[in-house]
Structures are given as structure tokens and as C-alpha cells.
């Protein structure tokens, strides 16, 4: 690959926006090209100094007050007023639970050599598919981890770790509640290029956690454990993208 072609790709690589094949090719090129290696180091240094310089300027309070209306005295913007969302949400959760139970029962009636892990993965893939229907993707829509994380407070009995990986090409889109294996779990929603990834999170319990990796209905899933939580990422992205996301979580 000649260097003039890789000059732009270097930025895609730096921003985590190359597809896995191009990224691999670029890395191969880096091994043999000291110029590009130096350029990449320089771009990384520039990126670091911008991040360190803390150039982000937040909206002044006066602007917030103006927009929220002084009369109501609203000081804070809250994600999704709970009263509006909740009844519907619980109904949906109940319906989904019933469906999952029925599907699970049918599967048990007609065992086709599916392991329990595969059954659970299938239910997570189903949950991911449901979420892709219009209006079901997120209950709290925000790219800000500090908005998404508190949203789970009081809705679920644990505090799932919420991180935005936008700089690594996995921007956080929001979160939602879901039901898997009859339990309410947290789902974090990430974008990967044009694809959506659901990362399901629940407390890992002895002998009862998501594990392994596989494929169901054309969707890949990858599970792992970390800090007492059980994670399972489901998406139509490549397994290597899921692996990359897993590594980002583990690096936290």
C-alpha cells in the first residue's frame, strides 16, 4: 500500500473508524513504514494535547435558566420523567417476560441439543432484535455516561458500569431495561458505524452467568465477566468488533 493512500486512513485508524480489514491492512503497512509510524505518533500526540488542554466549554447557567423558564424554577434536566415511561415499560417488560417464558418452555419441550448457554444467548439476540423495532432502542437516550448511569438508579437493583467509547469508535447511544432469562437486566446501546450493539449487563451469580460466544439468527454474541458483572454484547457487527468492545470494557 503506497503511503499517499494511507495518509487519510491514518486518521480513520486513529479515530477507530476503519473497518477491521482496513485496520489490519493499515497495521501491516505500519510495520514496514517508519514515516507513517511517525505520523501516527504525531497525530496521537496532537490528539492527547487537545484532550489535555480541556477546551470544552459548557453552557453557562444563565442560558440553561433562560431555556428552562425561570417561573418553574427547574434547575436540572432530568432524563425521561419516570411517571411517563414506567407503566408502559413494566407492561412491556411483563409481555416480554411472558414471551420469553413461552419460548423457553417450547424449547424445553422440544430439546434440539441446545445448551442452556445457547438458549440464553438466543433470548438475548431476541431482546436485541426487539430493540431494533422503531422506538424500542433506548429508554434513556444520551451519549453522556453521566446521564445514562443515574437513569438506572431505582429501575434496577444494581448500578451497571456505563462508559462512552466514542473516541474508540463505539459511541454510547443510551440505555434501556430488558428482560433475559426471566430477569430484568440493563442494556447499554452502542453504535458501531451503521450498526447497533446491545450490551446486556447483570450481576454475575454463581453458576448463573453469560459465557462464551456464538452466532444466532445471523447475529453474533460475546459474553464475559468483569468485577462481578456478567456482560453479553449482541450485534450484527463482526465478532472482532465485539471483541474490541469487550477489550474496551476490560480496560476500564
Amino acid at each position, binding site marked *: 500500500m503506497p503511503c499517499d493512500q494511507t495518509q487519510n486512513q491514518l486518521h480513520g485508524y486513529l479515530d477507530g473508524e476503519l473497518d477491521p480489514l482496513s485496520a489490519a491492512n493499515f497495521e501491516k503497512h505500519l510495520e514496514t513504514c517508519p514515516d507513517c509510524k511517525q505520523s501516527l505518533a504525531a497525530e496521537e500526540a496532537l490528539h492527547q494535547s487537545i484532550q489535555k488542554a480541556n477546551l470544552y466549554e459548557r453552557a*453557562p447557567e444563565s442560558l440553561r435558566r433562560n431555556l428552562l423558564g425561570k417561573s418553574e424554577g427547574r434547575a436540572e434536566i432530568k432524563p425521561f420523567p419516570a411517571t411517563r415511561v414506567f407503566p408502559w415499560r413494566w407492561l412491556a417488560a411483563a409481555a416480554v417476560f411472558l414471551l420469553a417464558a413461552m419460548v423457553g418452555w417450547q424449547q424445553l419441550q422440544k430439546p434440539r441439543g441446545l445448551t442452556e448457554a445457547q438458549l440464553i444467548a438466543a433470548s438475548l439476540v431476541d431482546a436485541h432484535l426487539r430493540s431494533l423495532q422503531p422506538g424500542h432502542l433506548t429508554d434513556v437516550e444520551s451519549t453522556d455516561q453521566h446521564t445514562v448511569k443515574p437513569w438506572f438508579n431505582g429501575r434496577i437493583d444494581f448500578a451497571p458500569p456505563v462508559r462512552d467509547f466514542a473516541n474508540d469508535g463505539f459511541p454510547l447511544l443510551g440505555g434501556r431495561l430488558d428482560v433475559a432469562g426471566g430477569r430484568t437486566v440493563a442494556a447499554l446501546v452502542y453504535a458501531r458505524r451503521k450498526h447497533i450493539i446491545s450490551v446486556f449487563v447483570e450481576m454475575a451469580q454463581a453458576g448463573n452467568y453469560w459465557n462464551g460466544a456464538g452466532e444466532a439468527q445471523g447475529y453474533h454474541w460475546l459474553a464475559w465477566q468483569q468485577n462481578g458483572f456478567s456482560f453479553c454484547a449482541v450485534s450484527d457487527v463482526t465478532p472482532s468488533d465485539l471483541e474490541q468492545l469487550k477489550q474496551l470494557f476490560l480496560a476500564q
Partner: protein
Amino acid sequence: MLEGEDRARFEAIVLPHLDAAFNLARWLLRNRTDAEDVTQDAVVRAFRAFGTYRSGNARAWLLQIVRNTCFTWLRQNRMAAEFMEFDETTMPQESKNPETLALAGSDREQLTRALESLPESFREILVLRELEGCSYKEIAEITSRPIGTVMSALARARAQLRNSLSQPASKEARRAV
């Protein structure tokens, strides 16, 4: 200021991105006071247009309105000749000598000055990517450009930022408008 039934929904979905809106306006207009006015204007516009927002990326949706409002404002308050459309293709290619690559000492003031000296299109894409952490897809959506051109535009913007960082003070004159 905002009224009506949709207000709660708007506050929940769009207003969490107020910091992002203000930050973009501040860097496009290079001035906090103007940025506050223009952001307020943009948010009111966004509220009026909220009926057309279905679902999807609320931040990108709002930022698109903010940048358009900023550009309209800049056009109306045409500040000197610098609002000239910038010809990106004639940009000199970045030299690769070590001095221009060494940026370790860059501090906030220096970066602010360098960033503010860039043409708007470069400043915009750098703020969206480096400060706001937008994906290429979001940048394409916000700036209404094909997604295939985001990567090369970023490459040129970064090269230009490095250039102005390596030419201390020479660009300052352009700021004094």
C-alpha cells in the same frame, strides 16, 4: 420560554445536549456571549422543529441546527473577509519534519489560538471530533457532507491545526477583528 405539550419530551431528549450545542457555537463564533445568544436561538428553533424529530440521534439533530444557526449569524454579522469560503484543495500539504510534529508543550492558550485561527469548516470538524467525540457518521450528518469525505477533511483540518501551532503568533493578527 418553551411551552406546550412537547416541552417535557424536548427537555428530556434534546436539552441534555445543551453543553454540546453551546460548545460548538462558542468555537464557531469564537465568543461566549455571542455563543449564548445564538445557542438560545438555535434551541428555540429546534423546539419549533421538534415535530419533525422522530427518533435517532438527538445530539446530531440539535448540533445540525446549531451549526446552521451559527453560519447564518456569521453571514449576517459578516466579520471581515475571513468568512470567505475556504478552498480546502489548495491547502499546503503538511511537512513531516520533526519540529512541526513536536507538540508536547502545547498548552490551552496556544491550542485555543491555533484552533480559532482555522477556517470555520476546519474548526467545526475538529470541535465535533476532538471535543465532542462525534463519530464520522454523526459528523457527516451534522455538517451535511458525504460520510466518505469526513476522514480526508479531518486529515486536512489536523494538518492545518499543526501548521498554525508551529507558527506562533503569526496568525494572531487575523483574530483582531
